[in-house]
């Protein structure tokens, strides 16, 4: 008789049940806003030495307190992100305190700070995975994006150490004006290093702090809609997936016409995000002041049971919303959502012309094919 049944996570049937019952499945912790790089497109980074930002960071015991509540509400998986989470001097303490609560951990890092100490630690206390973003595969391109001399050598060294030690690594690429010429090589590099997973993301988000100069810079790094579509079409796996699910992406205009709710996405359904300074959000990008909660003042349990309901019930009767995005037949091809609309336009119910143009270019391409 088998007393103990082994399960791999994708077959874990509780996920859906928990989401349906408004339980927490997972959460993201931004351990810091600081980063050792200064990427042109980054929506969060502050200088590594920024003492004010450092002073605002949630301490180990505050993080442990949030995790404790999240675990008691069902959470099983936690993503540690940043900024660069390995900049935290207490990273090991944070990681271990979460592990000991029975959380499965993923880590997003640029790999440049990986040392032998990290390797030993991760080998002893394995993360579910470590996800690394590849900005280029030559020093010139990589450092054009990161604006940090020496960062390419540090990245390749860190990545190779992790791969050699057998820790599960996933790679992804952000595609921006500064590295788009190298995307075929980046893609080959990533697929050569890890067999099971690679994705690229051409959508550059605006800054969480609304920094106007940095936002202007991010916009200059964005690709034109036609360039995005051409890239997507040149990736056979991605194109096939989109073609196969075409019916899900384009639907009749009337499908949401009866409803003025802002949120039809997964925000606050099964997961949430906490900023490095303790702000609860329903998802990473949702920074509108009516949608966040300061976890130094309210408990997670309170935010989860009250704020989430309040936000999910938000509505808009503005014509530009009701007549455009709410009934849009190609919304599933669009990056538009209340969170990103707010980052782009300061309003959660405004269309975003750049997103709109990308979505229409994608729809046209799908129809033509």
């Amino acid at each position, binding site marked *: 008789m088998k007393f*103990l049944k082994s399960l791999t996570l994708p077959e874990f049937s*509780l996920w859906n*049940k928990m989401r349906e019952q408004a339980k927490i499945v997972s959460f993201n912790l931004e351990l810091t806003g600081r980063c050792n790089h200064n990427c042109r497109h980054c929506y969060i980074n502050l200088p590594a030495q920024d003492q004010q930002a450092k002073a605002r960071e949630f301490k180990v015991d505050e993080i442990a307190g949030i995790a404790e509540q999240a675990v008691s509400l*069902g959470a099983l998986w936690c993503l540690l992100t940043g900024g660069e989470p390995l900049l935290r001097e207490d990273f090991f303490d944070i990681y271990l305190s979460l592990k*000991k*609560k*029975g959380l499965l951990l993923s880590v997003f890092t640029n790999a440049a700070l990986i040392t032998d100490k990290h390797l030993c630690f991760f*080998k002893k*206390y394995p*993360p579910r995975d470590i996800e690394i973003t590849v900005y280029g595969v030559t020093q010139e391109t990589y450092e054009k994006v990161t604006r940090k001399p020496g960062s390419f050598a540090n990245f390749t060294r860190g990545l190779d150490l992790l791969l050699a030690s057998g820790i599960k690594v996933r790679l992804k690429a952000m595609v921006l004006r500064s590295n788009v010429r190298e995307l075929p090589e980046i893609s080959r590099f990533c697929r050569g290093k890890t067999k099971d997973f690679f994705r690229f993301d051409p959508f550059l988000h605006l800054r969480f702090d609304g920094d106007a100069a940095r936002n202007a810079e991010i916009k200059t790094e964005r690709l034109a809609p036609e360039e995005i579509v051409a890239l997507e079409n040149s990736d056979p796996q991605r194109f096939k997936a989109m073609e196969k699910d075409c019916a899900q992406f384009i639907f009749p205009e009337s499908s949401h016409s009866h409803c003025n709710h802002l949120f039809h996405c997964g925000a606050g359904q099964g997961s949430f995000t906490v900023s490095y300074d303790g702000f609860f959000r329903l998802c990473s990008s949702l920074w509108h002041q009516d949608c966040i909660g300061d976890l130094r003042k309210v408990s997670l349990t309170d935010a989860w049971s009250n704020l989430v309901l309040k936000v999910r019930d938000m509505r808009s009767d503005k014509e530009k919303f009701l007549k455009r995005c709410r009934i849009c037949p190609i919304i599933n091809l669009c990056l538009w959502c209340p969170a990103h609309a707010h980052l782009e336009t300061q309003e959660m119910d405004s269309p975003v012309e750049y997103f709109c143009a990308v979505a229409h270019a994608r729809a046209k391409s799908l129809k033509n094919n």
Partner: protein
Amino acid sequence: MEKKLVLESIFAPSEDVVAREIQGEFLIIPITSGIAESDEEIFTLNETARVVWNNLDGKRTLRALIDKLSVEFDSPAAEIENEVCGFTEELLKRKMLIEVKRG
């Protein structure tokens, strides 16, 4: 080499795993490497195993545990002994249990 179980021994959950109950499912989640075969693997316990796990508390001998369960479930001790020993061996093999005191 496998050691034979001694009923006078006392066992407790290893600190390298965490037991959690989520939505009525009893899960064992490894903290350290060498327990699961992949980083995607967790474990669930069936009803019997859950009762035994909750009684492997680092205080009771296996024999005391068997006697207790035999009364609680009104079953012959030999039957319970089979189940308890089977499960304990499985947990030991997986390094989810430690022997606190060898009997």
